[in-house]
C-alpha cells in the first residue's frame, strides 16, 4: 500500500530523515519508534505531505505521491493526527468533526444535515457524544486526542498516520486509546502508521515496528524481535563506555 524509497529530508545542516526505505502492506499496524530527534515526526510529515522530501520517492497504492500536496494526499486517503493536538479551539467538538467531513472527498456528496449526522456517529464511536457541544478549547487532553482521531477517521482514510496519540495520557487513558485504535483498524479496514513513545502499549498493538535513530532506519521487524536488537538497545540506552 505504501512504499517509501530512499527518502531524505534536510533542515539546513541537519539530516532529519536519511535515506529511509520501507514498505507497508494493507491492513498492517506499523509502530514507528526511536529516541527524541530520531526523525519519526519528520517521516510522518513527509508521508502526509506536510513537508516535501529533498530526495526519494513515496508511492501510495502504486501511485507516485512524492510531489502531491497534503490536501491531495488527504483526498487519496491519507489522514493524520498531530503530535500536539491541532483542533479548531473556538469551535465545538461536533463542528470540528463536521468540518473535516465537509472538506473531505465523500463529504461533498453529503448535505449539511447528513454531514452533521455522520459527525455525531464518529463522536459516538470515540465516546465524545456528551462533549459534542463543548468547545474544543475546553476539552481535556485525552478528549482532544480522541477528537483528533475522530476527525481523522471522518475523512474515511485508507492510511492513518498517528503521531504520538498517548502523549500526556495516564496509563488507563493510554490503554483505552490503544484499544480504540485497534478497534477502528478492524472495523474500518485501515492501515496505520503509529509513532509512539509508550513502547509497552505499542508492542501490544503493532504487528511490525520500525526503529529510527539519527534519521536512519535501524531496524524493521516484529516488536519482540526488534526490541532485542543490539542497535535498538544502544539507540535507546546508549553505548557502554569502555
Amino acid at each position, binding site marked *: 500500500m505504501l512504499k517509501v524509497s530512499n527518502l531524505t529530508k534536510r533542515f539546513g545542516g541537519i539530516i532529519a530523515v536519511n535515506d529511509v526505505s520501507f514498505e507497508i502492506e494493507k491492513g498492517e499496524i506499523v509502530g514507528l519508534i526511536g529516541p527524541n530527534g530520531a526523525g519519526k515526526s519528520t517521516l510522518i510529515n513527509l508521508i502526509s505531505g506536510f513537508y516535501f522530501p529533498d530526495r526519494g520517492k513515496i508511492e501510495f497504492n502504486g501511485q507516485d505521491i512524492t510531489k502531491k*500536496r*497534503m490536501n491531495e494526499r488527504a483526498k487519496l486517503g491519507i489522514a493524520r493526527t498531530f503530535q500536539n493536538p*491541532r483542533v*479548531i479551539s473556538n469551535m465545538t467538538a461536533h463542528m470540528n468533526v463536521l*468540518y473535516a467531513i*465537509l*472538506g473531505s472527498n465523500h463529504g461533498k456528496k453529503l448535505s449539511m444535515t447528513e454531514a452533521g449526522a455522520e459527525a455525531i456517529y464518529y463522536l459516538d464511536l470515540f465516546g465524545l457524544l456528551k462533549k459534542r457541544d463543548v468547545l474544543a478549547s475546553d476539552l481535556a487532553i485525552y478528549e482532544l486526542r480522541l477528537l483528533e482521531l475522530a476527525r481523522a477517521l471522518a475523512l474515511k482514510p485508507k492510511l492513518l498516520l498517528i503521531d504520538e496519540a498517548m502523549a500526556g495520557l495516564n496509563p488507563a487513558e493510554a490503554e483505552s486509546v490503544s484499544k480504540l485504535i485497534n478497534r477502528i483498524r478492524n472495523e474500518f479496514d485501515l492501515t496505520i502508521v503509529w509513532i509512539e513513545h509508550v513502547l509497552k502499549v505499542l508492542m501490544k498493538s503493532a504487528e511490525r515496528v520500525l526503529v529510527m535513530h539519527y534519521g536512519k532506519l535501524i531496524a524493521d521487524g516484529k516488536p519482540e524481535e526488534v526490541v532485542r536488537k543490539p542497535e535498538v538497545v544502544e539507540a535507546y540506552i546508549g553505548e557502554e563506555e569502555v
Partner: protein
Amino acid sequence: MVKFEARRGRIIIHFFGRKYEWTIEPRYWRNPMIGLVLWLSLPLVLYTVAVVAFDYQPIALMSTLIFANLLIMMAVPYNLQTIGTGRLSFGPHFFLAVGGYTAALLSRDFGLSPALTLPAAFAVGALVALALSPITIISRGVYYVLITLLLPFILGEITYWRSDIFGAETGIPNVELLFPTTGNVTLDVMIFVYVSLAIALVLLFLVDRTLRSRYGFMMGVINEDEDVAQSYGINVRQIKIITFTLTSGAMAICGWFLAHYQGSFSGPVWLMPPFLILVLLTATLGGKGAIYGVVISAYFVATMREITRITFGELSVVVLFLILLLLLYFLREGFWGLYRKRRYREYEPSIKVRKKV
C-alpha cells in the same frame, strides 16, 4: 386567504397557504426581516423627522447614510476576505480605487454607461486581485501587511505621476451619474442612499450565503489553521485565491458607486490612511467575522464621523479615532458581541458564589 391566529407566546399568520410564525417575546426574535425593515425604513424615517419636525432638508444626514453604506460595502467583503485567506489585509481601499478609476475612465473616455462600467469595474478589480493573489500564499504576518499597505501608496503615486490620465488630486471629472438628476437635490440624494443601501444589502446577502455554505466552513478552517485545513483535503491555495479575487472585485464595486455618485473619481482622497482606518475600525467594531455587526458599526462610525466633524472642526479626526479606540478597548467582541451576549441561552452560564460573612 389571510388569517391571523393568536397562540400563547406566538402569533401565526396564514398567507395564501403559507404559514408564518412570530414569537412574541423579544428574546426569541431571530427573524432577520425585523432588521431588514428597520434598515430599509431608516432613511425615510430620518428624512420625515427632519423635514416635518425640524423643517430641515437633511442632505448632510443622507450623505452620512451613504458613507455608512460605503463602509458596509467595503467592510463586509473585507471580513470575508480575512476569514477566507486567514490574512489581515491593509489594502482594501486599493481595490476601491481600482474600481473607481476603471468606472471613471471608461465612462469619461469611452462613454460607457454605469450599467456597463459595473461589470468592468468588478472584472478589473478581480483581475488585479487575481494577479496579486499569490501574496496570500507566499506571505503572512507583517510581510502580508506591508505588501497590502504598499499597494495603495504605489497606486497613489502613479496617479500623480500620470496625472494626465488619473488627474491626481483633481481626479477624473465628467463621469456619468448613476441616474439623470430629478432636479430635486434631496430626492437625488435619497435615491443614492437607497442605491448604496441596495448594493450593501446584496453584498451582505452574498457574503452571508457564502459563509453558511460549505465553502464558508472551509474558509473558517483555513482561518483557524491552514495545516489542519490541508489535512482535511481542503485545497487551501484555491480557496484563498478565489476568496481574495472575488472579495476584491466586490470592493471595486464600491469604487464604481463612488465614481457614478460623485460624477468624478479622485483616487488620492480614498487612498489615504484615514479611510483605510475607518474601514478597519468598522470591520473590527462589528465583531470578529460578524458581518451583521458591520452594519451596526458602519452606521455608528459614519454618524460619529459627522458629529465630530461638526463639533470639533480640525480636531475631528483625532477625536473620532480616540472615541473609536476607546470603544475597541471596551467592546472586545464588537457590537455583535453585545447582541450575542443578550441573546437568551447564548452566553456561558455563570454561578455567583457569595462569601459567608
